[in-house]
């Protein structure tokens, strides 16, 4: 077993453990902090995949923006749910069965998966980021999907501001 495999197993164990804590811990604030650990673990998995650019994007967007947004939302909606009441709904056993069943099906499907090995070891990751940038700005490549994604983001953020805006004078 090589060093990369040992690192992978450790990172995967930390990631999955913190993911379990995200869905099971009682206090939402603690769940958000465990979510940050999970996102960081996924970023390390990206590094092991030699997509360093996406590891940086993961830290910037997921931890820097999304996790902070979630923490803001938790702080703005505090003291709604007492921490003594159960945090899971009545159908959680069915949810556990569905998730476990899906996991078993996927694991059985991957058992026969051909054991492909990484062939691009040693490729410079910076070249991948440069290729991605060129493809995203190439009119014959992915310039239009990229622009559509940016319009989606702008529309979503403007819509969020409108939805979450506090209207003066109360009422609906």
């Amino acid at each position, binding site marked *: 077993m090589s060093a990369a495999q040992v690192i992978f197993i450790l990172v995967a164990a930390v990631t999955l453990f913190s993911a379990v804590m995200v*869905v099971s811990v009682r206090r939402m604030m603690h769940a958000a902090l465990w979510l940050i650990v999970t996102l960081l673990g996924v970023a390390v998995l990206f590094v092991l995949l030699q997509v360093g650019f996406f590891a940086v994007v993961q830290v910037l967007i997921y931890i820097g923006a999304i996790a902070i947004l979630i923490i803001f939302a938790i702080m703005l909606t505090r003291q709604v749910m007492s921490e003594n009441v159960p945090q899971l709904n009545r159908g959680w056993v069915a949810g556990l069965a569905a998730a476990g069943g899906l996991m078993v099906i996927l694991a059985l499907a991957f058992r026969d998966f051909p*054991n492909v*090995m990484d062939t691009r070891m040693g490729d410079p990751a910076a070249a991948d980021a440069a290729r991605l940038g060129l493809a995203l700005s190439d009119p014959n490549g992915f310039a239009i999907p990229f622009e559509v994604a940016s319009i989606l983001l702008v529309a979503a953020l403007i819509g969020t501001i409108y939805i979450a805006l506090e209207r003066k004078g109360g009422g609906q």
Partner: protein
Amino acid sequence: MIPLSWYLLVAAALFCIGLFGVLARKNVIGILMGIELMLNAVNINLLAFWSYLYSEQVNGLVFAAIVFAAAAAETAVGLGLVLSAYRRRGTVIADELDTMKG
């Protein structure tokens, strides 16, 4: 060397944990966190397949980048809706947000 199936298994486990969170959490913000876990699992799969099988093309990276943008938009809209619902109804529990009238 790390086999591709290891990444697929970790991503599958992460997806299933997120699915459990979506199905079982009462709090709407908890459900959103489950969705984040599922989107992360999808991104691991996309980048693992790209890195192992199609690294001479650039499609997988573009797809993963657009998943990031869609995830950011989804979280922003979701949390805006949570704040708006909390302000009007005073709750963030999914079971209690069961009417479509304002």
